[in-house]
């Protein structure tokens, strides 16, 4: 009976991944349907109930995401993101390499603390504007923004969804990420940047015909509501400071994020319906439904068998095993969404831990693989999909062929550098 259930549940999960990958069905709809199917069958077979499903949801992850989404929803209409991008454009004085470095840096720094999809959604339109008035193609800049923000997001606990998931499941603090992940990401990010400058050398060698127009831009004019922006930024800064000490004060990251959201809402007092409309509910529901599906896989013993398979592999030197995890997860994340991969692998790694494997270093391998792997294909990360979709409405659309020529080398290089650093610094992880 349980074997039948294990096979059935794995089948449902794999079909769901395939539906998401092939874009036959929206990912949130797929997850809701898959979750309902798994709970229904679990009840029928008598080993997975609604209560188990509810217990499988990691509310710490959802709370952290929701809190940060509210802060971004308050900051977005103020024009602050537009302000930064216009500033980067002006400060570049129209020099392509400088423009790419500045826009890439702004996007990366923002996406280290905020959701990188939102960051890309807000920076990309201004990038198109700056490039058009300069008379150059926005393509290299859009691709670089997505790749660099994916890469930079790996540095912090709140930088990208896999990190939030891993941090919550493994009990890793904000500082743990700064100590273990940030140094690696700095080197990897620089590698990615130089590789991008090389890959786009021909496009970047073109001298923009109209530099004067960009110099005339005034960033302050792009900032519509400085008063609100200032308030939200102060709250955001306070939240980041609290993140540094959240472990010391025994505060969960989700509590910090949701309290910050509460303070910002009281201080700004926006039209709450408009603010809540900007929250990406589909993302939150996607996560919740995936937790429920993976909880079912765990209850049916699917993940247990996966643990037993991986246990056999874990007899190899731990460094090699970690590097193997980086590449395996990166490969999977390039093809499928990295969120379901991470959610499914977390219990597996916990299982390996229970079987006596030292899993401390494996969490970082998972984070690097999931984070850098997303660079590989046009559908590898949500930020990639976002810039590609935006560019479809321009005269120079980003194609998946172009991504394979520019993004894939970046993924391979970042994973290679991360593997080397991981192997060298292994005793520290």
């Amino acid at each position, binding site marked *: 009976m349980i074997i039948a259930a294990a096979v059935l549940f794995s089948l449902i999960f794999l079909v769901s991944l395939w539906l998401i990958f092939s874009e036959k069905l929206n990912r949130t709809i797929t997850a809701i349907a898959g979750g309902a199917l798994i709970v229904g069958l679990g009840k029928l077979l008598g080993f997975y109930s609604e209560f188990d499903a509810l217990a499988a949801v990691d509310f710490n992850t959802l709370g952290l995401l929701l809190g940060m989404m509210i802060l971004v929803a308050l900051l977005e209409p103020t024009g602050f993101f*537009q302000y930064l991008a*216009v500033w980067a454009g002006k400060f570049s004085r129209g020099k392509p390499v400088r423009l790419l470095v500045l826009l890439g840096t702004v996007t990366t720094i923002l996406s280290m603390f905020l959701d990188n999809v939102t960051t890309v959604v807000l920076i*990309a*339109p*201004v990038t*198109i*504007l700056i490039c*058009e*008035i*300069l*008379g*150059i193609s926005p393509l290299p800049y859009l691709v670089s923004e997505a790749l660099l923000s994916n890469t930079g997001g790996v540095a912090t606990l709140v930088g990208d969804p896999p990190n939030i998931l891993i941090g919550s499941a493994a009990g890793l603090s904000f500082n743990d990420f700064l100590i273990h992940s940030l140094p690696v990401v700095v080197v990897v990010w620089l590698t990615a940047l130089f590789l991008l400058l090389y890959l786009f050398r021909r496009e970047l060698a073109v001298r*923009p*015909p*109209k*530099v*004067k*127009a*960009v110099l*005339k*831009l*005034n960033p302050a*004019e*792009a900032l*519509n509501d400085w008063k609100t922006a200032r308030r939200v930024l102060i709250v955001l800064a306070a939240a980041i400071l609290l993140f540094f000490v959240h472990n010391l004060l025994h505060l969960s990251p989700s509590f910090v994020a949701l309290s910050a959201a509460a303070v910002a809402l009281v201080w700004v007092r926006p039209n709450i319906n408009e603010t809540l409309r900007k929250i990406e509910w589909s993302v939150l529901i996607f996560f919740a439904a995936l937790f429920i599906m993976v909880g079912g896989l765990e209850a049916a013993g699917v993940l247990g068998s996966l643990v037993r398979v991986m246990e056999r592999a874990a007899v190899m030197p731990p460094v090699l095993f970690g590097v193997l995890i980086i590449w395996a997860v990166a490969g999977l994340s390039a093809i499928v969404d990295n969120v379901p991969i991470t959610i499914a692998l977390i219990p597996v790694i916990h299982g390996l831990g229970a079987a006596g494997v030292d899993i401390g270093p494996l969490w970082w391998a998972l984070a690097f693989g999931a984070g850098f792997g997303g660079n590989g294909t046009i559908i590898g990360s949500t930020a990639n999909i976002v810039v590609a979709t*935006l560019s479809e*409405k*321009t*005269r120079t659309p980003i194609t998946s062929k172009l991504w394979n020529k520019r993004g894939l080398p970046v993924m391979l290089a970042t994973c290679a550098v991360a593997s080397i650093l991981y192997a060298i610094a292994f005793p520290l992880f």
Partner: protein
Amino acid sequence: MQIKDCMKHNVVSISATATICDAAAIVVKRHVGLLPVLDEQGKPIGVVSLRDLLELELPDFVNFIADVDFVHDFGAVETTRPAPEELAQPVTTIMQPITTIPEDCGLLRAYSLMLQHNLLDLPVVSKTGKLVGIASRVDVGTAILSNWPSQEAKEQ
């Protein structure tokens, strides 16, 4: 008053076999905002507006950024022209569906149609479907206002 009393009878139109470049030349020469596209039988099959033509030159960012007031100089975009091969395309590639009204249509109905469908010019057809005229928002609007009680009426 009906639309036929305020419309322009002389309609500038273009044949379906013309190119985008031809359409632009006619728009410039005749200083009009809307060109009905006619098939060989002279039947209207669509329209090309000034707006559709300008769409070819409009920068992409205008579609993404809600408020472009802060961009005081459009730089390279100001001197960007559509590619010649793009202009050599037949006019039917950018043609939009035509909205017409019968010549006996009332003025307020005509104006409301223009407002709701965001039309600046409205081609007028006879009962047999033949294009007999065209009216702009200004034509219709001023015709409506001309019916308002006049100064003399107030003095009486």
